[in-house]
């Protein structure tokens, strides 16, 4: 009896320990976020206070107004949207046939493709961006949205191929054989059998490409020079200028705006993301 009792006590203590640990994680993860949001809604008077409070005493949208006035935020958001949507759509469009071919046709090209996907993760961006910068300069695509879209497509391709391959593998080949037996052409099989089954994976890959492009900073920083072409990430760093302290509120407000689309897509993506990442890793 007593051993059972002590076991129960031990288990209860373990449970409490687990909750304490979980609470510590929650605090670590949440407190910077809370601070960012709180700063975005604080009036300038409170921001300058030497004894900052966790939440604004009076909530205000003033910082958002100033943020939109001081930098071309709306324009930057539009740029980001154009770049991210175009990059995502183009990436996935050229990745679908390639992912299909890499799974179904076991050729040397497919093997090389997989090798490249893994290898491309290893290279420092600086080794890619210098030659790309020189090439794009010769094509007069520096400081242009178009040039950035091209760069993002290439940059997004490896991971998109990786994700899509996982989804293609999940389509049973026997379905395609059955369609062929019923006299469907190759093309017909792809369009009416394979692609419909790929739709959920396609949507997930699209969203992931979008978020990657929306969040990207390094390439945009190097390639876009004039403010009217810059994307959200780059415009945000302009708030960090010499002004420093005075700009904290608008800086926080602009940051909150910049992260909304990504958070939205990630919320929708949650489940798929995990399965997608692992799906690519399943042995074929």
């Amino acid at each position, binding site marked *: 009896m007593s051993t059972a009792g002590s076991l129960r006590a031990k288990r209860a203590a373990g449970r409490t320990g687990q909750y304490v640990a979980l609470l510590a994680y929650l605090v670590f993860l949440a407190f910077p976020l809370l601070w960012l949001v709180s700063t975005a809604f604080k009036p300038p008077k409170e921001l300058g206070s030497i004894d900052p409070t966790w939440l604004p005493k009076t909530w205000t949208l003033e910082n958002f107004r100033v943020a939109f006035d001081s930098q071309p935020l709306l324009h930057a958001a539009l740029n980001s949207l154009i770049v991210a949507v175009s990059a995502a759509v183009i990436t996935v469009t050229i990745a679908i046939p390639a992912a299909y071919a890499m799974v179904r046709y076991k050729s040397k090209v*497919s093997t090389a493709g997989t090798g490249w996907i893994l290898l491309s993760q290893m290279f420092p961006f600086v080794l890619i961006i210098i030659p790309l910068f020189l090439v794009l300069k010769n094509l007069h695509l520096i400081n242009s949205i178009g040039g950035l879209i091209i760069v993002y497509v290439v940059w997004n391709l490896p991971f998109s191929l990786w994700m899509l391959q996982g989804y293609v593998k999940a389509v049973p080949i026997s379905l395609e054989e059955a369609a062929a037996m019923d006299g469907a052409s190759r093309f017909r099989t792809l369009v009416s059998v394979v692609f419909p089954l790929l739709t959920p994976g396609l949507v997930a890959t699209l969203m992931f490409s979008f978020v990657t492009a929306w969040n990207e900073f390094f390439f945009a920083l190097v390639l876009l020079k004039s403010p009217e072409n810059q994307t959200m990430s780059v415009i945000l760093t302009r708030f960090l200028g010499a002004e420093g302290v005075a700009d904290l509120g608008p800086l926080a407000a602009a940051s909150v705006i910049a992260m909304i689309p990504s958070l939205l897509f990630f919320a929708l993506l949650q489940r798929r993301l995990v399965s997608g990442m692992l799906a690519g890793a399943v042995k074929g």
Partner: protein
Amino acid sequence: MSLTSLKLKPQASGNRGTPPPRTPAQRKATLGLDRGGWFLLLPALIPILILSVGPLLYGVSLAFTDSQSGRTNPTQFIGLDNFADLGNDSLFWDSFRIGIIWAVCVTALQLLLALGLALLLNQNLRFRWLARTLALVPWAMPEVVVGIMWRLVYHQDAGILNATLKDLGFISENVDWLGSFSLALPAVIVVGIWAGMPQTTVVLLAGLQNVPGELRESAALDGAGIWRRFTAVTWPAIKPVIVAITALNFIWNFNSFGLVYVLTQGGPGGETRLPMLFAYEEAFKYGQFGYAAAMGLAMIAVIAVFLTMFLRKRLKEEAA
């Protein structure tokens, strides 16, 4: 009809009168899968070759030239001069030392914290959903926003960290976290962990789903404690996942740029100047394309050395 033979199993080969079984290659030929592969790969292959493989080779070749921005006389091949210069550049060595400290610390602590969180989230705890959701947020955020957010937290006068530590009585004067020589790198490392932990957690959590629950239960029945169950059952099952994500994390962290660029721009006095920040400055502030490319190659070398060390140790363990 050739299509009917698709259904034949290898065992059927002994029967007289039936055609020999088809090899996988022949089977593919029947479906038309041996042709047309090129056609499907082409849309992806062309941009990859032109904009990824091509520039990469070009970039590697630049490392052996004196290429500069805005120069009128033609770029010349200078052999290993850039690498000799790198060897004598103390700023370069500092930057690489900082880069390695950063990458090793962030990767190791990320793994440790992510493993703890993943194990917790794998338990049947209340508020698990909240932690799961919160854990995804840093992953989705643009790294520039993460950097800005932590600048607000670390802010010397208006930051919440100083205010809280003061209220709790840990410090009596406001600390300049990102401006102090000794504190800047640790402060930046904490941000790196915060930003990278979620992805690792999610991957580990997925790996934990594959740990057979019966094994853990039977180990518990045999009297194994929590620690023993972890080392004997859980750890071996998730080890491949851990090795893969740690290797990737190390590469990503060593190549990291945006976070630290926003937080400190490499300051104070170069204390947080990661290799990528250094290479970026060389290339796009001073226009030294050739030199920066050589730096990029040196970064690959560091990554290759670390990965070899890491993976060889793992292979040895596997053999033992």
